C-alpha cells in the first residue's frame, strides 16, 4: 500500500508516494530523477549506491524509504556539476582517478563524509572510509591519492 513520505533531498523538501519498504535507490533514480546514485548489487556489498543520510554514508539499495522519512538525504548530484565541480570531483579529475567510473558516485559520497569529519585524513583513514566500496578497474591508488588531494584543496592549501 503506497504511503506518502516527506524528506529532504539535496537541500530541497520532497514528497513521494511509495510502499514503505521500497528501497531508497528506486525513489531517487526513478521518482526523483537522481540517476547518479548507482545500482550495483542490491545487497550492501559494493557501495555503488552510497548516499548520505543525515550525513552518514548509507546504502540506498537496501534502505527502505520509510526509514528516511523526516531525514536529509544527500546524493552525488549535490556535490558539483560539470561547470562547477566540487573540490573532491576536481581532485579526482586532477588525478584521473577512475576508469569505467561506475564506482565513483558512491566513493565520492563516502569520501565527502570522511572529509566532513576529518580535514586531514591519513592514508589509513581514507582506506578505512572506502573499505565498503569495490572498484573493478583497479583505480584504487589514484582514488586514495585523489581523496588526499581533495583534503588539501578543501583546507585551502596547495597554492592557487
Amino acid at each position, binding site marked *: 500500500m503506497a504511503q506518502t513520505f516527506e524528506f529532504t533531498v539535496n537541500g530541497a523538501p520532497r514528497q513521494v508516494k511509495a*510502499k514503505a519498504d*521500497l*528501497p531508497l535507490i*528506486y525513489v531517487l*533514480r*526513478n521518482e526523483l530523477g*537522481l*540517476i*547518479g*546514485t*548507482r*545500482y*550495483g*548489487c*542490491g*545487497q550492501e*556489498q*559494493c557501495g*555503488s549506491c552510497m548516499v548520505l543520510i543525515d550525513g552518514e554514508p548509507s546504502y540506498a539499495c537496501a534502505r527502505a524509504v520509510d526509514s528516511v522519512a523526516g531525514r536529509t538525504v544527500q*546524493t*552525488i*548530484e549535490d*556535490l*558539483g*556539476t*560539470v561547470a562547477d*565541480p566540487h573540490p573532491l*570531483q576536481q581532485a*579526482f*579529475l586532477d588525478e*584521473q582517478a*577512475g*576508469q*569505467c*567510473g*561506475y*564506482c*565513483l*558516485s558512491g566513493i*565520492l559520497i563516502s569520501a565527502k563524509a570522511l572529509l566532513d569529519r576529518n580535514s586531514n585524513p591519513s592514508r589509513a583513514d581514507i*582506506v*578505512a572510509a*572506502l*573499505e565498503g*566500496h*569495490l*572498484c*573493478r*578497474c*583497479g*583505480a*584504487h*591508488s*589514484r*582514488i*586514495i591519492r585523489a581523496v588526499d588531494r581533495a583534503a588539501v584543496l578543501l583546507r585551502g592549501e596547495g597554492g592557487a
Partner: protein
Amino acid sequence: MSAEKSNLPLSLTVNPRLEQWLKFEADETVRVATGKVEIGQGVVTALSQIAAEELDLPLDQIVMLSGDSDEGPDERYTSSSLSIMVSGASIRLICAEARALLLARAALRLNCSAGQLSVEDGRILVDGAASEISYWSVAPEVDWSQAATGEVAPKAPAEYRIVGQSIPRQDLLAKLVGGAYIHDRIPEDVVHARMLRQPGRDAVLRTLDEAAVRHAAGGEIEIFKQADFVAFLGADEAVVEAAAAAAAEHAQWDKAPNIEPIQQEAAWLRGQPSDDRQYGAEEDLEAPGEIVEATFSRPYIAHASLAPSCALAQFTDGRLTLWSHGQGMHPLRRNIAEVLQLPIEAISAKHLNGPGCYGHNGADDVTLDAAIIAMNRPGRCIRLQWRREEEFAFEPFGPAMLVDLKVRIDDAGRPADWTTEVWSPTHVQRPGTGSGFLLAAAALPNPPPAPVPQDPLEEAGGGGTRNATPYYDIPKTRILHHLVTAPPVRTSALRTLGALPNVFALEAMIDDLAIRAGEDPLDYRLSMLSDPRARAVLETATKRANWSQRGTGGEGEGLGLAFARYKNTAAYAAVAVALHVDEQVHLDHIWVVADAGLVINPDGVRNQLEGGAVQGASWTLKEQVTMLGQGVTSLNWDSYPILRFSEIPGIEAEVLDQLEQPSLGVGECSVSPTAAAIGNAVAHALGHRIHDMPLSRERIIAALLN
C-alpha cells in the same frame, strides 16, 4: 597497388571511404568516427589526440563519434589491445590524407603551392600569414566518398605537440558528477524488464507458477513468454525486479544442467574430449639433457563487472534501435539481425557507457534480450537490466586452464627444448566470431544447434595458447593445445585470454630453473633474452624494486619478478612485486615497467598498467567461480570476493620512452606478469612453490603445513 593496399590497417581496408571516418561540421569542428568504444581505458581521448595532431587542430575542434553502427566505421570489437594499433593507425592515415586534400584545394583557391600553406585552429595560413579560408570553407570541394590511399605520410614523431601528452580523459568529468551510463537512460514511458533465465541451452521450461511470481512482485507486471524465453515487464522497476528475484524458485525446468563438484576445478579438464592442435617443432625424444616438468592451473574466473548489464531497445516503423554497452556495435547489429531475422540495415546499434567489462560480459546478451521484447512491443522503449545474480551466473567466464610444462635442460642449466601443453575451454565466444552466440537465441523457438567450440589460432594471437611460447631464446619450443569442447559453463574473452595462466606457469618455471642452476632469477632471464627492449623493462623494473638487495627468502618476505611481451607481439612489461605472507598473502608494492612503443597518452597508459596490475593481483590471490548442480554458485561479492582498498599495495607504473617505435597495444600487458611476479614472490617468501591459483588463504596454509 594491391600489395600496398594490403599494408593498410585492417580497419581502413574494411572501411575505405574518408566519409566513414571524418565529417567537417558546420560549427567548425571535425567529427572523427571510430568503431572502438570507451570502456574506461581512455581510448576515445587517445584517438582524438591522434586526429588533432595530424589535422593540426586543437582538441576542442575534434568531436569523437564512437560505436555507432549507422555512421561510424566497422572495426569489429574493442579488444585484444588493438585499438591504438589499428584504429589509431587508421585515423592517423585518414587525417594526414584529409589534411593534404584540403590543402590542395586551398592552394588552388589561393593560387599558391600547397607547400606554402600551414594550418592553425583550422584556418589556412599562407607563408605563415592568415588567409580568408579555413578547412571548412574548402571541405565541400573535397570528394569524401573517395577511398583513402594511405599514401600521405603522417607527421614525424619529433613534430608531435598533442600526441605524447597526458591529456585528461574526455569522459571522466561526466562520470564524476553522476551521469553518463546506459543505466541512466530512463525515458518517460519506458517499459522496465527483467529476465527469468533458462539455466542451460537445453533446458525446457516445464512450469512457472505465475500467480506466485505476481504475488511476489507486489505490483502490476506482464509476463512475456516465447518458448523458454521469459521476461517480466512493467512500469515500475522495483516491481519487475521483485518478480524476477522470486521467479527462479517458482520455475521448474527439464533438462537443466547438473554440474558435478569436480567440474569447477581446472584439474577436471585433463582428459576431457578436446580438439587438439600442435604448434612448433616435434620433440626429439632422444635428445640429451635432464627433463623438468610441472603443472600449473587457474580456475574459472569472472569479469565481475561492477554493474549488471543493461540495454535499451525500441522497434518503431520497421526500425530496431539498440543502445548497448557492448564492445562492438557493428558485430552486435549483425548478430541480432541474424537471430531476429531482420535485415541488417533495419537495425541501429549505439554504444553508451557501461561498467568496465575487460572482455565479453553480459552486455551483448542483454541487448538481444531487450530486442526480443521490443520486437513484440512495437513503439515501446524496453529497458532491460540483468539482476546482479544473473550477471554473476550467466556472463561468459574466463576459462579454467591447466598448463603442463616439460623442459629439457642443457649443460648450462638453460632450456634447450620447451613444451607447453594447455588444457582449456575456448577463450572467444563473442557473437559473430568462431563459435560465438547470444544467450537468448537458445531459449527462442527453433533454437540454433549448439556451436562447435573454436579458439583463436596461434597466428591470430591465440586463445588458450596466448603467450604459451616463452619469449626467451630457447632453441626448440612447441605448444600442445587441447581445446576442451564441453566445459560446464559458457566461456569467452576475458582480459589477456590464456596469457595469464600461461605466463604464470612459464615465469614460475623460469624462476625454478634459475634456482636449480644456482643463479639469480634476473641474471638467468637476461642470459637468454636477446631483445634489448625486453632487457630494458626487466632491468628498469628490478632497479626500481632494489632487486640487488633481495634477500634469500623462505622467511615470509618475498620479492618476485616476471616478464612477458603480450601476445609475444604487443607491449613489453616487467613487474616486480614485494609482499609478505603469514596465513595469507599481503601485497606491499608493485613496480610495473612497460615499453609500448610510441605512447599517445602517458598517464592513460600508466592508468591501464596500474589497473591491469590490480586486476591481475585480484585474480591471482582471490578469485574463483564456483558451481554446482544447475549452475554457478558464486552469485554475489561475498562468494566472489575481489581485491579491496585495504589490500591495495603501493603501485608505480613507468613507461619507457620509445617515440620512434610503432605503438604497441598496452591495455593488457601488465596483467599476466603481475600474476606471475606474485607467484614468484610467494615462492620466494615461503621457499615453496604453489602451482594452483588462486593463492588463497587455504592454499597458503596448506603450503605452510607442508
